[in-house]
């Protein structure tokens, strides 16, 4: 057993090693999320000492000195690892760091990279404290985890190559080849709205984009922010209309921990009141979406939250 622990420790060291060095930026990277500006985190609130109730989850995290966040490494604008600095950047990543600062006083997080299928288990067995990972609140999931928030509302959109005609709404995808990311909610959404569509899946967003450009399918269904970022990088692709689903993202917490849920909701409210939430949006998603930051969704407004 000790050997196993040692092996795991070594593997984590390997991961940590890649985040140890800084370095110059890479000019060849378009649409690059701005580094989680220290300005943003400087403005982020810190909890009153009284809010860190003895014996609570918050106190446990504070004593550990690090917030364990379940998240991704390969979601541009939301939670993307920057190979140059090793930092994880984007909207979700900034929110995680801000929450860490609120509890601990410093934005100290450890991102536990997690496949989306296993998030409930990760929270359940205490591997992570919170999950920031485009985690859509549903009543079903709320049976296994608690959701603070919603902290953002997104939705699925359709992207096509410029000049494509005859696709204006999801129903138009019937009978056509439609690209979707493997294991994404897009698959179920397409099946529901366009049951006659032939869904072809690839393992990652860049692969789906390449497939769209190579005419493997006529349309690509994906989260609107990812598509907006893609369309900005690649002028041959355009996003059609508004999102056709509404996915409220929640902060996943341990089921039944009402105290921590209220604490996180209070934090979220403060973030919004102080304009930090809006700043985090501008630094990340706001770089590809035109206009001012949207009004944040009302906390607790969704069934399951």
């Amino acid at each position: 057993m000790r050997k196993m622990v040692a092996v795991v420790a070594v593997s984590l060291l390997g991961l940590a090693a890649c985040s140890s060095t800084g370095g110059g930026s890479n000019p060849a990277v378009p649409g690059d999320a701005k580094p989680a500006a220290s300005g943003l985190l400087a403005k982020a609130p810190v909890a009153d000492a009284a809010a860190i109730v003895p014996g609570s989850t918050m106190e446990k995290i504070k004593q550990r000195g690090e917030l364990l966040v379940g998240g991704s490494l390969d979601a541009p604008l939301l939670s993307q690892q920057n190979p140059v600095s090793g930092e994880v950047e984007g909207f979700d990543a900034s929110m995680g760091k801000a929450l860490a600062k609120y509890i601990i006083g410093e934005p100290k997080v450890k991102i536990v990279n997690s496949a989306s299928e296993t998030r409930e288990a990760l929270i359940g067995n205490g591997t992570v404290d919170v999950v920031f990972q485009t985690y859509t609140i549903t009543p079903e999931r709320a049976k296994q985890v608690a959701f603070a928030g919603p902290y953002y509302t997104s939705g699925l959109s359709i992207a096509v190559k410029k000049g494509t005609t005859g696709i204006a709404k999801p129903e138009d995808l019937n009978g056509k080849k439609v690209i979707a990311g493997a294991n994404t909610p897009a698959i179920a959404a397409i099946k529901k709205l366009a049951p006659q569509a032939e869904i072809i899946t690839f393992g990652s967003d860049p692969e789906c984009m390449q497939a769209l450009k190579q005419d493997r399918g006529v349309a690509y269904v994906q989260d609107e922010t990812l598509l907006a970022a893609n369309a900005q990088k690649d002028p041959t692709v355009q996003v059609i209309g508004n999102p056709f689903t509404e996915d409220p993202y929640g902060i996943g917490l341990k089921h039944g921990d009402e105290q921590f849920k209220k604490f996180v909701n209070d934090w979220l409210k403060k973030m919004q009141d102080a304009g930090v939430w809006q700043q985090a949006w501008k630094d990340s998603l706001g770089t590809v979406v035109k206009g001012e930051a949207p009004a944040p969704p009302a906390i607790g407004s969704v069934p399951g939250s």
Partner: protein
Amino acid sequence: MSVLLDHLPELWQGLLVTLQLTVASFVGAAVLGVLVTAMRVSPVPVLRALGTAYVETFQNLPLLVLLVLVFFGLPEIGIKGPPMATAIVVIAVYQAAYMAEALRSGVNSVSKGQAEAARALGLTFGQSLRLVILPQALRTVVQPLGNLTIQLIMSTALAGAISVVDLTEAAKRVNLQEAQPIAIFVGSGLAYAAIAAAVGYVTGRLERRLVIMR
């Protein structure tokens, strides 16, 4: 269990795709494998080098990486095939390297006297290979080729990476919908085991018959 019955059409379709992938890429791999083997024992130095380079390259690349690289890369040099065809060709090319290696050890196991006799009779290189060496070599490699076929069946499961909905991919999609992983994946696993058992049965029969002929 009922989840398997509810989704029988999708899973059955996936199984058919797996079988198509298996049969088509086996045929391709066998033809290519024999060709590469012939190159590796041929009198032309360049062909020998090419044959060796072929085996070295494809035995040392992960099939998964090869699949995505070919699928997304070839259209950039002007060759675009549908996913299914790409999967068949890539799996055939990949497995041919292993076939060639097995066949070569088969060729090496044929006693030197056989080749000398063939040459003494005045057979050319091609004739001695075709009429004397390969038939005997094939006999000694029936068992390894059977194992390679099972390996080939397993490798078809990776075709899902380039959007081919084979049995494994179909099972994953059904699971995404139904979230009953044990029934779905155990059921599909047993289907693979059944195909492999059929292959094992055929190679067993084949080996016994060929041994008697000798």
